């Protein structure tokens, strides 16, 4: 390579999901050619996000305050909580406009192979919210793949008897990720959720 700085940028970009060396080179040269302000705007956006964004104290969603905008929103239905693996899944569910309740972000799915055990997810926090907050229904919206299904089964065992527990209806591509499901499919799955 011509310059260690470019090498370093390419190496950093390659660490992003879905970016191979070829794409990383393209992006790096794009940034090199772009006006200085534009390129630096990206750098400072990355910095802002890392400095300002944190996890909502209540639900684990991303926020710049103590509580996220959804937990703060007085119009949301506080008797129902939708459990998702990641903040990005919450965004997918929001896009359907079908759902008016609160969320709970686990921060992943159970996977003993990867060393992810219940205590590594925000499961105790979920059980605490169900105890305290007058929640009547928990919708399990973990991904419809192996680890997501196992996580849902684990949570259902913990929650049964304390609260109504539902799971997103099928219609989702099996083995897929919530993140990539289109709004229509996901909306339909939501309205057809079932008790488990």
């Amino acid at each position: 390579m011509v310059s260690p700085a470019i090498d370093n940028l390419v190496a950093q970009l390659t660490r992003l999901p879905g970016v191979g060396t070829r794409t990383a080179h393209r992006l790096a040269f794009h940034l090199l050619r772009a006006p200085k302000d534009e390129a630096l705007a990206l750098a400072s956006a990355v910095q802002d996000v890392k400095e300002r964004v944190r996890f909502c104290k209540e639900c684990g969603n991303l926020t710049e305050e103590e509580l996220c905008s959804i937990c703060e929103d007085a119009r949301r239905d506080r008797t129902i909580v939708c459990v998702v693996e990641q903040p990005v899944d919450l965004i997918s569910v929001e896009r359907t406009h079908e759902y008016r309740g609160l969320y709970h972000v686990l921060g992943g799915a159970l996977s003993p192979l990867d060393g992810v055990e219940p205590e590594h997810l925000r499961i105790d926090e979920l059980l605490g919210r169900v105890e305290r907050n007058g929640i009547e229904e928990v919708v399990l919206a973990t991904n419809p793949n192996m680890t997501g299904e196992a996580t849902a089964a684990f949570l259902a065992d913990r929650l049964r008897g304390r609260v109504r527990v539902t799971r997103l209806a099928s219609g989702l591509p099996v083995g897929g990720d919530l993140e990539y499901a289109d709004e229509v499919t996901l909306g339909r799955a939501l309205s057809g959720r079932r008790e488990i």
Partner: protein
Amino acid sequence: MLVVGPNGAGKTNLLESLHVGTQGFSPRTRNDANLIRFGREGARIALHGNRAGSLVELNVVLQVGAAKRASLNGARLQAAEQLRGEVATLVFTPDRLVVVKGGPAARRAYFDRALGRGTPTQAALPVEYGAALAQRNASLRGISLGYSTREALRPWTERVADLGAKLVAARRDAIAALEPLFAARAGELGLADAALRYEADSPSAESLEARLERDLDRGATGAGPHLDDVEILAGARDLRTFGSQGEQRLAVLALLLAEAELVRERRGVPPLLLLDDVLSELDPERRRILAERLPAYGQALITTASATALPVEPNQLVEVEAGEAGTVLR
């Protein structure tokens, strides 16, 4: 069609290229770079054929450092492996003898692939079961080491039981469908009373719970379809231990012909058969029977180093010679 040529001429290479060209992958290697001629940047396989009266045109392009590309009748496919759903090809290579001779794992792998070919919606089942099993085993070890709990094991036990029961049922169906055809083809080839025996217990969450202490001790799930075997028998003899070389070869061949019939029944079109070095170790009488039977299966290519190995019409003979420019086909 008989493919004849001296050792190292490229007969296996020709069959392999037909497999890649019709299925999108090699039966020999997962590393596509091995398929490209040494020192070259890429390879291309273009096939024109006739399927149930309509023309098919297949193209597979391999390139060093890039994903392979495949097209069917000019339309680009998302993944080259999608060709499998379009064109059926079954292959015999001497490596396949492990299906009879090898350990249970080789037979499980073979019958699991066969069930996937027969029922594509279940093709992922063996892999899914394996994934659930790996998770349950990791959880068992985690409990022994003190960083996981029996509560956290429970959902994996349920997944393993559920997928395991489905896998056992799918294998039973696949083997039940193959068995009578296998016995008939083996009989014609002179292997009497051939049979397949799959005796498996379907796992359940209860049966797994019942053996939990033992599983915790070994740090692995000690029962289930990942430990099953399919016996390949001639009468009371298990051909794995008591079959002669030739009988073992006949059994593998009879399995392949049985599957070819299933493919024809289910898809309405017979598969392309690629038989590499199938004739060695077979006596002249059995070669004759095979030559007689094969035309009924649609198109078949058989390689041999000796032109007299099988009596064929001259227009059914392909000679392969080593050379820079490639092969000479007639």
